[in-house]
């Protein structure tokens, strides 16, 4: 989608350098490719070897996309020993070795063919460490357009028209939030990007940060302009070192290029952005806890209202959105809010990025229009369970979500449908579970997570999750009684209704949803009314 008349080399190899492929040896592969190219006597002009971000199919890394005159071919799990063959194949695919043939991925695979790249359009295309490449791809053009051609109201109008809703979990209408912040009494305002992607099974934001950080900065800057903020923070979890590194680099480049700082692009708009690195606390994904953490405090949530849009960092109105939300903004402005709203369902517009993992053949990043059925995501795109056995359930929404049973896979994925099923969109992690997965064990897994991550401020979460985890232990060890079942139900309801923040309020969801759909597994673990034999 490049808008520039950039001269592209005739042939190029795009090597994924995001964390997943890195751990599978992408750096070694890239070095081997460069050596092989030099050995074959090609120049970088003839054959570019370009480090890029996520090429989606993370489970088959390291991934390399080969752009030649005949189109693009994708290779997965390429060993460095095949570097020479790969260089050769860029010229003539018929020369590809058997090993290389075997690593070739069919671009017509539903995994690729059924995706729509909107938020991820630059992922795997641009070099995440080069602002020039990002600019050549069109990044920052919408920021410039906003600054020169649009008023903040007009920007917010487009975001409202797009129907974009917060991609971090709650699904609050983004345009409305922006308005709330913008319309507060005059005074300082802040924009904050929540990049504390903590849901186990979620890695969408990580991929955007590692693959296309300038898009995020552009979205954040547009938001700052739209709400009248001159200071922003990106709060990234420390567990993502590569994302932190690339984001810092991108910030530095953007400052040097005059796209951040004072007098941006010759206008009076000024914006300073700082990276704040977390230190391992899931609860900091909760917005009031995140604000505490940015201010150097314990990440303890506080009751809302007041909402951060009214009173956030240092008491000033603060706009908080997550990475995917901000990353969707430049496209919305480029193509128009109506264009974005034409995708998706009545209540959930646009596309959503999912991180597909667990017992599924194709693991990786999937971007599809809202309203796509779960079945087409996990069975068609994901390819089902690797050994061909049936899917038992799909977990969405992380520790706040639930397990959706196989018989409901035809549900369209949108905020409301998932809530009705007792799960939630969450940030977009989707973990597929096969028949061997025990649901009380899944529930215990999440409850232990919540026990570990509870901040300890309010008693239902601090002490209730501990009791819930112990109750679940009794089911997993098949020494529960029917009375335990009643206790489990009652305590889940209590923790959900009375906890202070979203973490506690949603901690019982994995239990409630597995109780709802897989109650028989709990009942099977129940003995007759208990007599004492516990350790």
């Amino acid at each position: 989608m490049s808008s520039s008349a950039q001269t592209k080399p005739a042939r190029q190899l795009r090597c994924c350098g995001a964390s997943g492929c890195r751990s599978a040896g992408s750096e070694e592969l890239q070095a081997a490719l460069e050596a092989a190219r030099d050995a074959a006597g090609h120049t970088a002009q003839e054959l570019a070897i370009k480090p890029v971000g996520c090429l989606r199919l993370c489970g088959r890394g390291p991934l390399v996309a080969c752009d030649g005159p005949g189109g693009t071919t994708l290779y997965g799990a390429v060993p460095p020993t095949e570097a020479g063959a790969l260089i050769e194949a860029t010229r003539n695919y018929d020369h590809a070795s058997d090993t290389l043939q075997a690593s070739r991925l069919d671009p017509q695979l539903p995994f690729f063919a059924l995706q729509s790249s909107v938020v991820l359009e630059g992922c795997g295309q641009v070099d995440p460490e080069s602002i020039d490449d990002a600019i050549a791809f069109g990044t920052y053009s919408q920021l410039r357009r906003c600054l020169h051609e649009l008023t903040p109201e007009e920007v917010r109008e487009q975001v409202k028209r797009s129907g974009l809703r917060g991609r971090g979990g709650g699904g609050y209408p983004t345009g409305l939030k922006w308005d709330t912040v913008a319309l507060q009494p005059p005074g300082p305002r802040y924009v904050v990007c929540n990049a504390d992607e903590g849901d186990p099974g979620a890695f969408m934001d990580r991929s955007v940060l590692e693959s296309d950080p300038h898009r995020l900065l552009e979205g954040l800057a547009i938001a700052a302009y739209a709400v009248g903020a001159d200071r922003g923070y990106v709060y990234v979890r420390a567990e993502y070192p590569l994302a932190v590194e690339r984001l810092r680099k991108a910030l530095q480049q953007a400052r040097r290029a005059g796209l951040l700082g004072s007098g941006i692009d010759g206008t009076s708009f000024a914006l300073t952005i700082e990276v704040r690195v977390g230190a391992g606390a899931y609860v900091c994904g909760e917005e009031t806890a995140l604000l505490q953490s940015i201010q150097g405090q314990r990440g303890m949530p506080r009751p809302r209202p007041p909402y951060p849009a009214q009173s956030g960092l240092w008491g000033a109105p603060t706009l908080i959105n997550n990475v995917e939300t901000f990353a969707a903004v430049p496209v919305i402005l480029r193509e128009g809010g109506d264009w974005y709203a034409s995708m998706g369902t009545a209540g959930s517009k646009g596309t959503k990025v999912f991180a597909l993992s667990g017992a599924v053949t194709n693991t990786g990043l999937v971007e599809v229009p809202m309203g796509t059925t779960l079945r087409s995501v996990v069975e068609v795109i994901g390819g089902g369970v690797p050994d061909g056995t049936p899917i038992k359930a799909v977990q969405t929404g992380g520790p706040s979500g639930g397990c959706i049973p196989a018989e409901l896979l035809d549900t369209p994925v949108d905020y409301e449908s998932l809530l009705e099923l007792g799960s939630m969109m969450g940030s977009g992690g989707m973990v597929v579970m096969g028949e061997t997965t025990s649901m009380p064990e899944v529930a215990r897994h999440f409850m232990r997570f919540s026990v570990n991550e509870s901040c300890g401020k309010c008693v239902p979460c601090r002490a209730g999750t501990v009791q819930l985890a112990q109750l679940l232990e009794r089911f997993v060890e098949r020494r529960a009684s029917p009375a335990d079942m009643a206790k489990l139900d009652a305590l889940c309801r209590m923790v959900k209704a009375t906890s202070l923040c979203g973490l506690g309020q949603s901690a019982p969801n994995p239990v409630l949803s597995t109780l709802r759909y897989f109650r028989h597994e709990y009942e099977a673990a129940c003995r007759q009314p208990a007599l004492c034999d516990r350790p």
Partner: protein
Amino acid sequence: MSVITLSVNGKDVAIPEGGSLLEATRAAGVEIPLLCHLDGLEPVGACRLCLVEVEGSNRLMPACTTAASEGMAIHTHTHQLLDYRRMAVELFFAEGNHICAFCVANGNCELQNVAVQVGMDHSRFPYQYPQRVVDASHPLFAIDHNRCILCTRCVRVCDEIEGAHVWDVGSRGSHCHIVAGLDQPWGEVDACTNCGKCVDVCPTGAIFHKEDTTAEKLRHSDRPALLKAARDEHVWRNQ
């Protein structure tokens, strides 16, 4: 001063604008259990005992931190709330080591009183028996973490009223505990002024005068409000 009106359990009350739901319940003569809240200290909404139902909202709201607004209708003693409150108190008992029989605050303990208030005659949840310690290093006072319910009144009174900030909360989740200084023995923390305000506000027998033995602790939980009024409004009621 402008006034707002709202209804508490069907009874209309008027309170000054900016007041909390807690003030509204008091105006209506309705008593709801409280543990973390103490007049004179910043409310934190942590103990969840003062949650109330607000008509038109599907979320329960803590009375202590929620601002009252015109026309609100709240309910403080629905079956659901009574049920949740009792469970919360059971969780408090189960997470610490509360042996009333030999506690310094026996008979004068807010946790004990709240248990009575919510009708808790036993805990359905097993007691956890956490490993906790007693710190008697301070010359005048001692802290028995076994009896601590993490209400953070001591943290707040020391920070907001005394200005010494000896106390804070360490660790997280069920490992949370009150710390003095860098998790040092209390007696070694220079910042402590020996003022005893933390003893005054502690709702249980966790922080106490060393000379007090079983059932001898007296509470002075009205002091923060008196001190605050004296400081902010120059009104002395603590004669």
